[in-house]
């Protein structure tokens, strides 16, 4: 089977859509000749030129605003923020404009825009360049939120997101960019939003997660298997719409849940999922709903502190085991 990096998955989806559809363009800081801060758009400027792959000034409000305005006028923009942390600067355009326009206008406008936001820690970039902020955007009605964990999904979900008539926040994990994963070339095609993927079948506990933590969950699942615990790993892929059915099925089967994300735990989106399970599938549960996340601190700079703060496979393993004590 072919291997592809996560970054390639994203890049190839952009390339494919730009080849197919002249209304698709990409803009953001240093996405042109520089290829993007993480090299994700490398080569696209060479292929599509200045008009379709545009370097912007450092004006996140204008970047997101330009996506909103150009989508409202019929383009299908892909806007990149260099780090999700800079969402704070373009937040109004995303939350008060993009997310609400269709509703405020009585359904009479389409906003087919994608906002790509590299997220997460692990690169020693400290508090202002390491956040996971998906909880903010999933809380905003009108936004769709996608968070792929591997190249195949990154490709397929981005294909779909670009064509979606609603604003989609496409969260990318910067530690995954260089992660190579298997890709089924026959299946390199759009993946519908709102469909989770069972990354590993299991019967004793459901580890529900997404993004980088899918790999940690799989590592934990392997360790747990050795101790006779069969963990199912559910990769949500799309945070909103969320695959409630897949969650219900898994919980109905295992009766135990561990939710994992890289967000700081307080106020994480995993809390919302846990709350939904505690509200709707309470009687399926036979143990507390565990959550694993980052500590409730900013992400520190020093390597040891950073990895202490962020969640890892061992944390997941311990959380699962605590349910079997």
């Amino acid at each position: 089977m072919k291997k592809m990096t996560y970054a390639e998955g994203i890049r190839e989806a952009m390339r494919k859509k730009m080849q197919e559809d002249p209304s698709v363009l990409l803009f953001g800081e240093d996405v042109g000749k520089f290829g993007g801060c993480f090299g994700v758009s490398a080569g696209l400027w060479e292929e599509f030129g200045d008009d379709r792959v545009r370097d912007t000034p450092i004006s996140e409000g204008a970047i997101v605003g330009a996506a909103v305005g150009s989508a409202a006028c019929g383009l299908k923009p892909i806007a990149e923020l260099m780090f999700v942390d800079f969402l704070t600067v373009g937040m109004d355009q995303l939350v008060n404009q993009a997310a609400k326009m269709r509703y405020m206008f009585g359904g009479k406008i389409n906003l087919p825009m994608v906002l790509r936001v590299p997220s997460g820690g692990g690169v020693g970039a400290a508090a202002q360049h390491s956040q996971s902020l998906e909880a903010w955007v999933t809380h905003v009605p009108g936004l769709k939120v996608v968070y792929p964990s591997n190249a195949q999904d990154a490709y397929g979900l981005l294909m779909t997101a670009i064509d979606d008539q609603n604003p989609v926040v496409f969260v990318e994990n910067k530690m995954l960019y260089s992660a190579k994963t298997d890709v089924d070339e026959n299946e390199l095609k759009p993946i519908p939003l709102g469909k989770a993927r069972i990354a590993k079948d299991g019967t004793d506990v459901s580890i529900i997660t997404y993004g980088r933590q899918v790999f940690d969950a799989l590592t934990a699942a392997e360790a747990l298997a050795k101790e006779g615990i069969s963990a199912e790993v559910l990769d949500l892929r799309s945070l909103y719409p969320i695959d409630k059915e897949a969650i219900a099925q898994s919980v109905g089967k295992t009766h135990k849940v561990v939710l994992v994300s890289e967000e700081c735990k307080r106020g994480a989106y995993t809390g919302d999922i846990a709350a939904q399970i505690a509200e709707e599938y309470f009687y399926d549960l036979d143990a507390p709903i565990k959550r694993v996340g980052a500590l409730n601190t900013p992400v520190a700079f020093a390597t040891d502190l950073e990895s202490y703060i962020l969640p890892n496979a061992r944390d997941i393993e311990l959380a699962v085991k605590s349910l079997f004590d």
Partner: protein
Amino acid sequence: MKITNEQLKDMYLTMLKIRKFEKNAMDKFAEGKIPGFVHLYIGEEACATGACAALRVDDYITSTHRGHGHIIAKGGDLNYMMAELFGKSDGYCKGKGGSMHIADADKGILGANGIVGAGHNIAIGSGLAIKYRKTDQVCVCFFGDASTNQSTFHEGLNLASVWKLPVVFVCENNGYGISVSQKRHQAITDISVRASAYNMPGITIDGNDLFAVHEAVGEAVERARKGQGPTLIECKTYRWRGHFEGDMTVYRPDGELEAWMKKDPIPRVEKYFIENNVMTQDEINKLNAEVDKMIEEANKFAVNSPAPSLESALEDVYSDIVEEGRVR
């Protein structure tokens, strides 16, 4: 810019529609029939009218919280507008938007906006789309004096300029952001000086002079259509009412309103009509009566339109998802 008499009459008609629409909104708000915030445009009619008269149907505008005038001038339907103010199902936004969120994509109206300064960045997106498609459309971005201290003004004008986007920035300087006078919110007098920060042309004009607005915006629109980039136009004007209905305007010096009322843009055009034999006083009166009727119609339309169904609240969040309701 040559203006024909027909064009002039059209513009006059537009100003009347705005003035009378606003008066009606004022009354209906006072009667408690319009919920929320209502920001009236009375006194500023020449700005929207002169500017939009320089535009085609396929051109775009972005508007503000004080948007009725812009929307009417760009061809917005009075009935749908009034129904929206009343929160009715036949309103432009099916009652979901209200005064601050009226839009009409078919007419290039990219929306009134409740966020001060939001239009600047949306307008550059619109300009980008135009430039990208290589048409000769333009986008006019309307905004107030106080919004020119908002982050988006700076980002928007910078990007429009460096990308040479076909956007005309029309600042309606009515001297206040709510209660804060211009000299307390910025250290400049003519906002058009800010154009130089982006190396774009900037000009200050009398915003109560329909001819001046039309000419300045017309020229800027021509430049934009030719690919020569954006322009900043500052129209000095004044709002007669409070910031929103209910504002007691404690911050206004005595006599200020009265002085500005003397510069009412509407009689200025009427005077021109009569002096230049464009329209007689009788014709003017007749036109006024016609507009009164339109407003009466709009009012009726609004009153008779049914309230939106509760389930409609769950629609239009997404193009393809209807949200779940709740049991009550």
